[in-house]
């Protein structure tokens, strides 16, 4: 890049972040610096990635100008940030959240959800349509987007961006197609019946076809609607002992099979939400090998927690699909590393404390995930269980490319959306450390390692 060769030509830099540890490759190596021998050695800690180096990030007009070896560019910016000891990461994208507004603002609203996103490290948030009313009309979409803009601090003028997901069927009832063209024009980036799987395969087929004409990817919550639906606990050793009606993993895999066969037959794309088990991984892997345009996500809780979390009738561990045995956790990690599972998403599903503090079978399903996702998944990288490039792909490029969202890859011209992260900082998950209105997570009270220290969006500090 010519700017890198001649940094003196950059008239005005708005932000320079100095000496952050970057573990990926550099897209704009400052070839002309001629100081290769004097590059500072990075402190890699326990990370297995050998490519780490200290870099400076230069930003102008909300965009990346250059990411270069620390000290190699002798320029001053209006704002200088010392990032020594901190890891540089692009902001994350969450393709699956429930922000509850309109309708259930006591659980979460768009402002509190976006605040949790800012502190959780997310610049892009896709939110599901199961609000009250359902996001099946342009006016609901427009309302959501307006609420998002209003949530940004006026002094900063920017905040995490909201990308609503429209309903696939009217009212999510699974009977008539939603007005998807209206939804797209209003700003929806995908369509989904998440939370209420479409029972009719015929209607689902038509929805796939109709959405494809509009360039919208259908996101499917894979769950056979008749096979022990929404139990919130895996059918297995734990459910058997506790006397709870469990949901077998095949409830997900059967529907995933249906979906990829439909997508293949119709030659349309499909995205499978919150994949939780090895059997679904096998379905996706085989479909990809045949060339089906299928992408899939899994969630931090499926990579780190098992069905044992439910053992004390802990309603905070009740989630749909349910937490599975350890063998599924291992299969998901492998699938995420090899790209069978493309992306990570939180399935952030806030519920008020009083809704969870009831009999297990009465409690709603869902885990509040925006506040903990980064630390939980970084721990997998830090301990060598998830490759850094898979982490990066899963939280940034994969969702952004699938749904057409802006992404920072640290190439010149990319939006300057990035984080500074202290991988050693420990914190206790609790009301004081979470921004989401709802604290329904099985991690409540546990110590996590790794804390976001700064978050820049379009080059502006939002945390």
């Amino acid at each position: 890049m010519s700017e890198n060769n001649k940094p003196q030509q950059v008239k005005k830099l708005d932000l320079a972040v100095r000496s952050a540890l970057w573990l990926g490759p550099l897209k704009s190596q400052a070839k002309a610096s001629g100081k290769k021998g004097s590059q500072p050695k990075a402190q890699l800690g326990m990370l297995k990635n050998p490519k780490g180096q200290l870099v400076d990030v230069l930003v102008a007009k909300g965009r990346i100008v250059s990411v270069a070896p620390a000290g190699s560019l002798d320029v001053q910016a209006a704002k200088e940030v010392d990032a020594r000891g901190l890891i540089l990461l692009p902001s994350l994208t969450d393709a699956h959240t429930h922000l509850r507004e309109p309708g259930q603002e006591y659980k979460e609203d768009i402002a509190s959800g976006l605040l949790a996103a800012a502190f959780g490290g997310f610049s892009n948030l896709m939110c599901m349509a199961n609000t009250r009313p359902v996001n099946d009309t342009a006016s609901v979409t427009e309302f959501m987007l307006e609420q998002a803009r209003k949530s940004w601090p006026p002094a900063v003028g920017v905040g995490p961006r909201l990308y609503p997901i429209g309903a696939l069927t009217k009212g999510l009832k699974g009977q008539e197609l939603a007005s998807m063209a209206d939804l797209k024009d209003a700003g929806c980036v995908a369509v989904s019946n998440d939370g209420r799987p479409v029972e009719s395969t015929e209607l689902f087929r038509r929805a796939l076809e109709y959405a494809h004409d509009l360039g919208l990817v259908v996101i499917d919550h894979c769950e056979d609607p008749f096979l022990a639906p929404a139990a919130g606990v895996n059918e297995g050793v734990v459910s058997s002992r506790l006397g709870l009606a469990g949901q077998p993993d095949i409830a997900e895999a059967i529907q995933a099979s249906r979906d990829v066969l439909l997508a293949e037959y119709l030659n349309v794309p499909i995205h499978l939400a919150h994949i939780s088990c090895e059997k679904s991984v096998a379905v996706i892997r085989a479909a990809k090998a045949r060339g089906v345009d299928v992408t899939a996500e899994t969630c931090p809780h499926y990579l780190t927690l098992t069905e044992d979390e439910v053992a004390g009738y802990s309603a905070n561990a009740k989630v749909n699909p349910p937490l599975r045995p350890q063998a599924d956790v291992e299969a998901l990690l492998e699938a995420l590393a090899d790209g069978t599972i493309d992306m990570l998403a939180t399935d952030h599903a806030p519920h008020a404390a009083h809704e969870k503090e009831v009999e297990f079978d009465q409690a709603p399903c869902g885990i509040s995930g925006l506040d903990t996702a980064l630390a939980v998944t970084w721990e997998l990288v830090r301990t060598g269980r998830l490759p850094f490039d898979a982490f990066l792909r899963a939280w940034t490029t994969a969702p952004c490319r699938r749904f057409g969202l802006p992404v920072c890859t640290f190439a010149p011209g990319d939006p300057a959306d990035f984080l500074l992260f202290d991988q050693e900082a420990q914190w206790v998950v609790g009301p004081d450390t979470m921004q989401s209105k709802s604290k329904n997570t099985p991690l409540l009270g546990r110590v996590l390692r790794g804390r976001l220290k700064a978050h820049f969006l379009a080059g502006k500090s939002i945390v």
Partner: protein
Amino acid sequence: MQWKHKDLLDISQLDADEVRHILATAAYFREINSRPVKKVPTLKGRSVVLFFAEASTRTKTSFDMAGKRLSADTFALAKSGSSLAKGETLKDTALTLQAMNPDGIVIRHGSSGAAQFLAERLECSVINAGDGRHAHPTQALLDALTLSRHWNGDFAGKTVLILGDISHSRVARSNVLLLTMLGAQVRLCGPRTLLPPRLDTWPVTVFSDLSKAARDVDAVMCLRLQLERQHAGLLPDLREYARTFGVSPRHLAQAAPGACVLHPGPINRGVEIDSALADSAESLILEQVENGVAVRMALLYLYLTRKSPDAAQPGIPA
């Protein structure tokens, strides 16, 4: 024995010594129950709430009688007459009851885990009288007392067949734990549609054929078949169920000499148990009911006096 547990939620909390102590204490109260005057002042001044959020006749009456025979004050609360029916949460009902300072709450509830939910929030003792499909420890203990008397206290080498709807049965879950702890072998038999998942992780042998399952067993424990299972698509009809899984004198003839039949009640005559067999000499069903009162007296005594060993009466096992 200094009783260390605040609550009785499931058999898994107890060890074999504690179980034997409960059974020995129950045997003492069983003797009291045979006297002309059956009331003792052991729990005078203490109060027990009987909180039955699910229909029950014998368990509720049994606890009520057990409390009254120990001179405790018992207060019955049914779901239909409580604020639960008005939409109050279990937590709020629990806190309200707690504010009245009972010494113990006996809970029957349709949700698995409800007794633990209550116990985690209350200072008083919580006795689980059946929570969903999870546990029914007092039933298992009264079954154990019944079998113990029948077998002179020796469970080693004995085989018990639990028959019927295992999947939905808290009685089966608690009995598997308790019978195994006491040294008996447990067999399960029922249609696959009424068996829980992952029985390979249970300490049992599973049969799908009742004729084979009943062979050489020392006791058959029938479970009540909830009639709505047919409509849930788990069974074709009751006639076929009775023909394939109903226990009859023919099955008992294949069992070990002296084998007995138990049933937690209420029974469906002609469905899970042959009517004549229920009334036969081999049937211990009514003795189970009698032992139920004694076991619940023992439990109320142990749990409600755990902090005041001076409440012990002469004759009660120490």
